[in-house]
């Protein structure tokens, strides 16, 4: 099958070679285009590596404050309920400084879609510990490896969210074609849940950060398979399929 690049990806992205953001941007673009909602979509884009997205991703978008993307998106969606509104955030953004805004958007069951990229570190600022950083993982602020006696455990946010009244929650990864296609399906389900006014949808994506992990792209994918996925289980955790509004 010959595949055309989605129109939203109108120029090449600016992420590091081997970074997962490029794949995820492309998946979001493909889903929005295939659903015919690309021209009607509005994105609230996080601070961090995500902030490179507006330059290369052609939908209406707003640069949110660090951590506040879900609140910004909620403000937009409540004013324009007919538009598709999503956030695009990393783990430092959504789970450290923005934990409250992320969780409360889920608690209020805001009819928005959160695309949450988990690469287990603060990428843009040079690879510091994030809430998702694995036990013993070396980062620039855990040079001897993350000591969970001091920092607490890696944060599995889906475990905290799945008992809330939300519409759709899933976690995918990018380690091979099958996982990429599964992740795309999750993203589509999430946007469909929003279209059906089912409420809050949240897709976590395990993604490589080759630069800060200091791994080549293939090693990084192996690392996710071997070390990240056992901590952050893949799959669909909430699927309501009911109209909420």
């Amino acid at each position, binding site marked *: 099958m010959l595949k055309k690049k989605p129109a939203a990806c109108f120029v090449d992205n600016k992420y590091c070679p081997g970074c997962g953001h490029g794949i995820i941007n492309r998946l979001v673009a493909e889903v929005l285009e295939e659903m015919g909602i690309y021209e009607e979509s*509005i994105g609230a884009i996080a601070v961090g590596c995500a902030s490179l997205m507006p330059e290369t991703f052609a939908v209406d*978008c707003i640069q*949110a*404050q660090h951590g506040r993307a879900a609140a910004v998106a909620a403000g*937009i969606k409540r*004013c324009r309920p007919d*538009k598709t509104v999503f956030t695009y955030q990393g783990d430092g953004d959504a789970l450290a400084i923005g934990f409250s805004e992320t969780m*409360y958007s889920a608690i209020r069951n805001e009819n928005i879609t959160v695309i949450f990229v988990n690469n287990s570190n603060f990428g843009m600022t040079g690879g510091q510990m994030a809430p998702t950083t694995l036990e013993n993982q070396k980062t620039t602020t855990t040079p001897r490896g993350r000591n969970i006696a001091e920092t607490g455990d890696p944060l599995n946010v889906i475990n905290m969210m799945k008992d809330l009244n939300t519409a759709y929650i899933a976690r995918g990864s990018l380690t091979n074609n099958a996982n990429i296609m599964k992740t795309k399906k999750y993203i589509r389900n999430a946007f469909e849940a929003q279209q059906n006014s089912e409420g809050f949808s949240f897709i976590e994506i395990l993604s490589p950060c080759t630069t800060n992990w200091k791994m080549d792209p293939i090693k990084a994918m192996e690392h996710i398979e071997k070390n990240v996925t056992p901590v952050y289980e893949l799959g669909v955790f909430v699927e309501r399929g009911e109209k909420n509004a």
Partner: protein
Amino acid sequence: MEKQLMKGNEAIAEAVVRAGCKFFAGYPITPQSEILEYLSWRLPEVGGNFVQSESELAGISMVYGAAAAGFRAMTSSSGPGYSLLQEGISYIASAELPCLIINVMRYGSGLGDIFVGQSDYWQAVKNGGHGDYRSIVYAPASVKEASDLVVFGFDKAEEYRNPVTLLSDASISQMMEPVELPEMQEHNPDKFEWSLKGKGEGKARSITSVMYFQEDYDNYIAAKYKNIEKNEQLWEEIETEDAEIILVSYGITSRICNEAVELAREEGIKVGLLRPISLYPYPVRAFQKQKNVKAYISVEMTALAQMAEDVALACKMKQPVYSLAGGMEIFEASDVCNKIKEVIDGKAKEVF
């Protein structure tokens, strides 16, 4: 429209609705909470959105989103809550979006207290947030003026694509006074080319700091605020024509000064009152036109005489500037008169 008796905060909230605002997100804090409570039932009546947010940080972030979508949007807070709004205000200003922020001032730093004060002057007028921006700031001295400035504030916010702050205080917001409410108006969020609505077949919009794409940004942003400073000064003068001593005072404190002017005039002292209505831009033109003035007294409910700095700048320090300051003890007209006499007798100390 008939006059009715209304509490300041409720008149402000009703004026918000009548200005065509369809989005409020905020958090409870005294003495601001009646705005939140009123809008919780009133906004849904007109098809608007009310959100009680989990924090002021989230509230202003939702306002940022709603404003970017082209809607008239606002939040209100007080004291420590107002501090939490500053991050969002800086972002909103950087992206050149219009919105209205209401600060019902209470007294003190930290937790402070819920009674009236004017100690947020520096934060509201000089920039509470980071970077090069200003918020246009209006200070009402009556319930009616508060309600009028809500509508005026939204208009100015859109004219300049800039946040506007209504700097009320616990007295103005909690007192009841007759008010003639503004007419109901509708606002069309699609009338702005820039508002987020989905790109359609056009070019994708990006709401972010304009410094990323504005050519010659430094000069552009400086000129924007110079223009506001030139065109948007607002003030009221009472008996300044022949005044040798001019009280400078805003908000609830200016009403104490009103009475002081009367009392002093009865004793034959030539006193006037200059009441800034816009605190940014500060009404420097009002100072430049004074012919007979020999001294200014900045009268304000702050311990540190915050506004006195602007008085000194506005008169270019050609006249001595004195201050009657304090907030734990609320001064009366007679205290103001005593200060005037101290100044005349050469017993008062200049601020600078």
